[in-house]
C-alpha cells in the first residue's frame, strides 16, 4: 500500500523545484531512497527521483520531471494502516503545495491515489466548484423533481376528479412551501460553501 499525488505546474522548471525542496525539506534524497520500498526491488534507481524527505514513520520521493506534473510518491512505515497513509499523504500534500505557493510556483489539478491491490482509491480536493456541484446534485430531487411532481399530481387529481380544486390547491400550497424551504436551505449551504470551503488543503478519498 503506497500513495501518490500529483499537481500540474504552470511552468515546471526542474532546477527551481529541486531548489525549493532543498530549502524547505533539506532534500535528503539518498537516505530517503534507501528507506523506501523501491530500494528492495532494484528496478527503480535513485536517479529516477529528484527530491526526497523522510521522518521516522513516513517518507516522500519526488519523481523526475515528466510532462508538467509534479508527482510525489508517499510511503508509510505501517503498511497496513490506510488512515495513517491518507493522513500522511494529506500532510505532505499540504506542506508541498504551501512550499509551491511560497515560491510562487502556480499549481492546479491536484489528484491523489492510493494503490491497494484490486481496489484503487482516488483522492480529489474538494474545491468550491465541486462543493457547489455536489450540493446541487444532492438537492436535485427536492428542488426540481418534487415540485414538478406535486404540480403534475395536483393537476391530474383535479382532471380525474380524485380531488376537488380546494383540496388540490392546499396540496399545491404545501408543495410550494416545501420547495421554498429547500431553496432557502440551498442558499444557506451555498453561503457556507462560499465562505468556508476551499480553504482546506486535503484530499478526500473515494473507492
Amino acid at each position, binding site marked *: 500500500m503506497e500513495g501518490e499525488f500529483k499537481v500540474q505546474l504552470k511552468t515546471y522548471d526542474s532546477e527551481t523545484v529541486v531548489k525549493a525542496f532543498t530549502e524547505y525539506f533539506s532534500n535528503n534524497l539518498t537516505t530517503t531512497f534507501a528507506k523506501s520500498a*523501491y530500494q528492495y526491488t532494484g528496478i527503480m534507481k535513485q536517479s*529516477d527521483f529528484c527530491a526526497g524527505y523522510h521522518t521516522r514513520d513516513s517518507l516522500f520521493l519526488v519523481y*523526475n520531471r515528466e510532462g508538467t506534473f509534479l508527482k510525489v*510518491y508517499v510511503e508509510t512505515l505501517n503498511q497496513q494502516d490506510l488512515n495513517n497513509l491518507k493522513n500522511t499523504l494529506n500532510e505532505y500534500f499540504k506542506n508541498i503545495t504551501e512550499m509551491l505557493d511560497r515560491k510562487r510556483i502556480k499549481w492546479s489539478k491536484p489528484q491523489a*491515489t492510493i494503490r491497494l491491490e484490486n481496489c484503487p*482509491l482516488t483522492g480529489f480536493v474538494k474545491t468550491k466548484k465541486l462543493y457547489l456541484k455536489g450540493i446541487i446534485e444532492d438537492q436535485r430531487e427536492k428542488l426540481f423533481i418534487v415540485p414538478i411532481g406535486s404540480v403534475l399530481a395536483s393537476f391530474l387529481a383535479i382532471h380525474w376528479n380524485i380531488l376537488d380544486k380546494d383540496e388540490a390547491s392546499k396540496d399545491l400550497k404545501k408543495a410550494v412551501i416545501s420547495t421554498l424551504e429547500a431553496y432557502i436551505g440551498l442558499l444557506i449551504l451555498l453561503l457556507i460553501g462560499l465562505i468556508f470551503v476551499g480553504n482546506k488543503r486535503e484530499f478526500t478519498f473515494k473507492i
Partner: protein
Amino acid sequence: MASTNTYDKESLFVSQLMEQLGKLHGVEIRKAPVADYGVDLLVVEPNSGKRIAIECKSAGDYGELPISTILPIARLVKNDPNQQVILVSFSSVSDLLSTKLKELNVPSLTKPTVKQVVDQVQLALSA
C-alpha cells in the same frame, strides 16, 4: 458512481477475457483470488509448464497508473523468473512506468481489446 461503473466494466472485461482464453487449446485458466499467485489471471500450459500471469490494473479517476505499480510487478517477476507477466491497464501508463516495465520484460497493454490480450498470451505461449 463513475468508479463503480469502471469497476463493472473491468470485471466484465476479465470475464470475457477468461471466456476467450478458455477457448485456447491445451491451457488452464485460473482466476484470482488465488493467494499463492497474487495475480488476476493465470494461464498455464500443463504440457510445457509455461505460465502467463495477467495483471489487470486500473487507477480509477486518477487517470494513470501510479508509478509504484511497478513494485508488485517486480516482486512477481522476481518470485518466478520463468513466469511471463503481462500487464493489462485500464488507465494510461506513464513513460517512466513504461520504461521500467520494459526493463522487467513485462509487456503492457493499455486499454486493450480482449482479442489483443488473447493475441499477446498466444505470443507468449509460443515463445
